[in-house]
């Protein structure tokens, strides 16, 4: 009895279900915008395709990171996976800038509240 494999299989099924759930909601929302409906079969097909596309993305990301002698996939690796379409890579570029600026905002907020606690440092600035 290979219970380790069963556990792996169950994990994969849960992930597939999670993908299917979000894909279903997205398709429903997009369908509503166009006053059309997606058949369950189509939603399942899109979910399956998305799941398999993740495999391709993951393998690419891993290869890019390894090529750069890293073990952690970075934003640059993700940008590379978007290279095939100009519109897509521009979109991903903009999104990465949004993420970076949100991070900066959060850092600034943390700095401010740390600054309020240390009055001397604030006056020196």
């Amino acid at each position, binding site marked *: 009895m290979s219970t380790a494999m069963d556990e792996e299989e169950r*994990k*994969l099924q849960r*992930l597939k279900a*999670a*993908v299917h759930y*979000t*894909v279903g*909601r*997205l*398709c429903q*929302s*997009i*369908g*509503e*915008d*166009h006053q*059309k*409906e*997606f*058949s369950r*079969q*189509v939603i399942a*097909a*899109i979910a399956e*395709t*998305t*799941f398999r*596309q*993740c*495999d391709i*993305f*993951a*393998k690419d*990301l*891993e290869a890019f*990171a*390894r090529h750069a002698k890293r*073990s*952690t*996939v*970075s*934003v640059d*690796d*993700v*940008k590379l*996976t*978007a290279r*095939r*379409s*100009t*519109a*897509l890579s521009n*979109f*991903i570029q903009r*999104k*990465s800038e949004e*993420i*970076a600026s949100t*991070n900066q905002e959060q850092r600034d907020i943390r700095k401010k509240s740390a600054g309020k606690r240390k009055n001397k440092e604030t006056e020196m600035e």
Partner: protein
Amino acid sequence: MRPITAESALIDKLKMAESSTEITFKKETVSKLLSSFFKEEKTKVGADAVLLMAEMLHVFVQEAAQRTIKQAEAEDSDRMDIEHFEKILPQLLLDF
């Protein structure tokens, strides 16, 4: 009908109503998903990279859905059926 290109479909996506933009993949799901496909145990994904990949997947699903709709419309069909999806699938995979 203008040709359905990656460019035009993406531009349409950007003009779209807020609702579908708000539905996103959870970052835990994306992270676990990618990790499950890595060949090596030591490979991890940075936090920002996870967020960006969630965006990639979001666009992927939107493209799949919108191209299927356009295909159904081109064939004067009210519903999106599997044949419509199958017809747009090859180009979708090539564009990504």
